[in-house]
């Protein structure tokens, strides 16, 4: 954990802490996420996985520590500014715009990404570049046939795919995915994993996931959290055989 490691890291956090009163949900986490790798964050419920992700994306204020993205300090930035800086995020509960069509959903993300000042002098249909971007991502997440369907009427798996599409639209270099497989049926799971693999290409991904088969399969590195701290981190094989991890977490399953 030298300073040099931070320079090369896509995303890194230094001794970050998130506290709610006396309770420390994240109690001093330091980690460097290297470019192009897929990290999985695992740990029992209440270990602070989602809070850590919120701390990285700006959703909760830090009581201590520093977050840098590509070497730039983003600790003081609001979530929307971090998104603009290239940090994408999806949520545990599907977050889409249910009253709008799938295409309109993606076009909104294109707007947010492209315009610093949202144009007000012409109908949105007149801005071709955002429509093109929306169509490109529509194809990437495999929802072309649902373009004009109300997003609220999609199946859960397709809503998940749309959610990922919204996160991916700005082509973020670093992506945080909070349980992208939550509630996805068995039939759709393989499709969702394939989608995650595809978007992970050339990007740095941090994933929270409970499905151990998936985690062991797709991760480059696994980070195990317990009580707001990192218990262990390393390649899947190493984590699988780590005695502390087995005691604290994996043991329950096996």
């Amino acid at each position, binding site marked *: 954990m030298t300073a040099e490691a931070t320079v090369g890291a896509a995303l890194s956090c230094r001794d970050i802490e998130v506290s709610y009163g006396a309770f420390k949900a994240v109690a001093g986490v330091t980690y460097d996420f290297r470019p192009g790798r897929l990290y999985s964050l695992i740990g029992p419920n209440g270990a602070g996985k989602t809070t850590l992700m919120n701390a990285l*994306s700006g959703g909760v204020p830090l009581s201590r520590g520093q977050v840098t993205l590509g070497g730039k300090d983003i600790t003081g930035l*609001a*979530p*929307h*500014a971090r*998104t*603009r800086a290239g940090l994408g*995020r999806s*949520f545990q509960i599907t*977050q*889409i*715009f*249910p*009253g*709008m069509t799938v295409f*309109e959903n993606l*076009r*909104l*993300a294109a*707007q*947010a*990404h492209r*315009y610093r000042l*949202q*144009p*007000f*002098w*012409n*109908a*949105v*249909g007149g*801005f071709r570049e*955002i429509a093109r971007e929306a169509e490109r991502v529509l194809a990437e997440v495999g929802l072309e046939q649902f373009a*004009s369907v109300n997003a609220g009427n999609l199946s859960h798996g397709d809503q998940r795919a749309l959610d990922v599409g*919204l*996160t991916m*639209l*700005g082509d973020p270099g670093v992506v945080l995915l909070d349980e992208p497989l939550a509630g996805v049926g068995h039939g759709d799971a393989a499709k969702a994993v394939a989608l995650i693999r595809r978007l992970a290409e050339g990007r740095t991904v941090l994933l929270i996931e409970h499905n151990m088969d998936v985690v062991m399969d797709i991760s480059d590195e696994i980070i195990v959290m317990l009580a707001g701290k990192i218990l262990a981190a390393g390649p899947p094989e190493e984590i699988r055989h780590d005695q502390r991890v087995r005691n604290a977490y994996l043991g329950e399953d096996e």
Partner: protein
Amino acid sequence: MSKLQPYSVALALIVTAIALSPLVLSGGNALNLVNLILIWSIFAIGYDLVFGVAGMLSFGHAAFFGVGAYVLTLLTTRLGWDFLPALGAAGLAGGVLALLFSFFAMRVAGLFFALLTLALAQLIYILAGSKLRDLTGGVDGLSGVPRPDLFGIDFFSDANYYYFLLAMFVLAIAIAGLLRVSPFGQALKAIKGNELRAEQIGFNVQRLRKSIFFVSGIYAGMSGALLASLIFYVSPQMLHWTTSGDVVIMVLLGGMGTLFGPVLGVALFEVLREWLSTVTSHWYGILGLIFIVCTIFMPNGLAGIVQQIWQRFSREDRR
């Protein structure tokens, strides 16, 4: 989208009919009523940009409305400004005040936001009636508010002033309609639909909200100025919280989140007010009851009813 378009056309036709009715109707009372409807419609259309489009419940709009009225009155009567620049200044004053409100009130969300805007507006109301008496004429208000002086037309005739108001109304609808379908309006719709997601895809939620609050304040300020000029009078009553309450009721009656719904709501409200107040002095209470019944039986307002009727007819067409 394509299913909604004809329904919007139906709404637009009704609104146009209301707006153009003085061309066939005669009689000073009807004309006065339509003039009132046009002015309050501008207010309601602007209010719905905040309420229906961006999803913020504000009880502070009376302040922007009333301050606009005072600004026009003071600039024209005390400083001798022409009507049109004074009207522009009234709009700007409403917008700037709204922006100022938003800096305080947007620190909190939902009901607390509504209560903060209410408190700030009441502060202005009380100031206008007491501390600022020299400027505002206190509770007596100020009379002698002028009307425009353009092209040698006598706008002191209600029939002529109607055309001026109609032009302002059309402008107000056109601008609001454009804002709604623009990327800016879509972003606001997104914030209303899912604030967390809107922020996380990169929208600066607070700045967008402040922007639409500013625009809405301009609408309120200008419509307040136009009302003062219609009745040649301004008083702190325009700043009172009931003015904010009225515009909320109008928008809900007509159908929030639609371009033409608020106009229908204003028309119903004003017609009821006109009619009930000749029948009983307790008209405001009866209006309240009607409003309660309406929100129960037509939650989407008059625009929702029009939509239902439209769908029924179009379904029968297909058979």
